[in-house]
């Protein structure tokens, strides 16, 4: 694989471009994510983004990641995800299309990536154009002495949206956060579930479905069912941790069963 890459590189990428790509490696921290890196690499191809060779770009990117690994540079996970995706894209583009295969074609995926790159570049340019505009306080100015004629003293209190949201956040994240009083009737707690289950588990010598431990009258209303299910399950885990019961589930979505744990096992 690495060998093949080397071949491709010498074939398609000139020496100066390879040097440029290596210079990039040293500076990996300067990139704002894999898309940014891809765009920078794409620019070294020196063609219209829409005509860019996605195969070559994928190879450039993969070579970059290889090089970074060689230099033992930490690459964030999203760079590696992109590498995996590009390897996939490359294989799709190089291999003849498999008619039985589901999903978008390699060309479609490549076209979308080209679109993303072009859009990112367009936004970069737009940002640069925006910042190059005349700006207030630098190129043009507002009135230096806003006038207050006739001082009618009236006090007005004000607050910003930020104050408001931070105020709300402050309340809702207080450690002693309590849910709404009118919500409470629909909420079952782990404590209550524990209280309910503790006296009952002594009888669970055989495997018993967890559903049996749900509180009475909490089925039907979906909100209450969810809360009770969660509380019961949480209590179950707590009991497992305390070594009082065992827990099993045959397969995903199968009923969860519990059994009293024999005291001598402890």
């Amino acid at each position, binding site marked *: 694989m690495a060998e093949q890459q080397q071949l491709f590189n010498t074939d398609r990428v000139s020496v100066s471009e390879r040097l440029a790509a290596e210079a990039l490696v040293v500076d990996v921290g300067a990139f704002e994510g894999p898309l940014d890196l891809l765009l920078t690499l794409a620019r070294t191809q020196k063609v219209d983004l829409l005509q860019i060779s996605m195969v070559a770009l994928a190879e450039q990117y993969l070579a970059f990641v290889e090089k970074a690994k060689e230099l033992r540079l930490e690459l964030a996970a999203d760079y590696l995800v992109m590498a995996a995706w590009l390897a996939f894209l490359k294989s799709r583009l190089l291999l003849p299309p498999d008619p039985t295969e589901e999903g978008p074609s390699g060309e479609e995926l490549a076209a979308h990536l080209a*679109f993303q790159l072009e859009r990112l570049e367009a*936004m970069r340019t*737009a940002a640069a154009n925006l910042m190059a*505009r005349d700006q*207030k306080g630098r190129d*043009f*100015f*507002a009135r230096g002495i*806003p006038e207050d004629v006739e001082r009618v003293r009236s006090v007005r209190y004000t607050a910003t949206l930020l104050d408001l949201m931070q105020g709300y956040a402050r309340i809702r994240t207080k450690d002693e956060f309590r849910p709404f009083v009118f919500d409470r009737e629909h909420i079952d707690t782990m404590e209550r579930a524990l209280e309910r289950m503790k006296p009952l588990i002594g009888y669970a010598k055989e495997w018993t479905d967890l559903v049996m431990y749900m509180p009475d009258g909490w089925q039907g209303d979906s909100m209450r*069912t969810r809360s009770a299910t969660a509380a019961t399950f949480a209590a179950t885990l707590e009991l497992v941790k305390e070594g009082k019961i065992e827990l099993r589930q045959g397969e995903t979505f199968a009923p969860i069963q519990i059994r009293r744990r024999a005291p001598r096992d402890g």
Partner: protein
Amino acid sequence: MVDETEATHRDIETEEAEISLFDAPPIGEQERMVEAILFASSEPVTIRELEGRMPHGCDPAEAIAHLRKRYEGRGVRLVKVGEAWALRTAPDLGYLMQKETIEVRKMSRAAIETLAIIAYHQPVTRAEIEEIRGVSVSRGTIDQLIEMEWIRFGRRKMTPGRPVTFVVTQEFLDHFGLESARDLPGLKELRSAGLLDNRPPPGMGQLSGEDDEDDDQGDLFIEE
């Protein structure tokens, strides 16, 4: 006080139009008034507010049109900012103003790009910004832009999860000398090139509909 003015205003409306014509000061005088009000304020002033502060029967829009002409080519210009008007010094004279220059808070590249994306794509959700930049929007970037009063929350999107959107503010327009967001440089070209489209990746549905919870009971136990 506003009520009072409104009440009087309504009275006049019920009377004959010619009377209110006599009441209104001559347009030259109205121009002076608009000039004084705009001059005294460092913030843009809306036509509505001008109307509220000037004697009834005045036509601030007309006065503005006259005033704008008068200030053409002067050291100070009358500019439109969104729905409001403001007097600003001519940009070509900025070099004389070192003393007044305000140190603009240094913005990161991420913040600048995020700002541009919001301006060109507004109203835009956080997920859409991240899709365009290919990275998550870092803590504090949005915060900073809100604090600078360059962006604000817009209407929620009518997509699953009803995510909040961001739009640019009048302060943003004022700062960059734009009459409206439609006047952003290159906007038309970007639009006709399809670069402002919200194009979902092939094989994916809508982009923004991520985090809606399924009502399925089973989900309760799935860790993510």
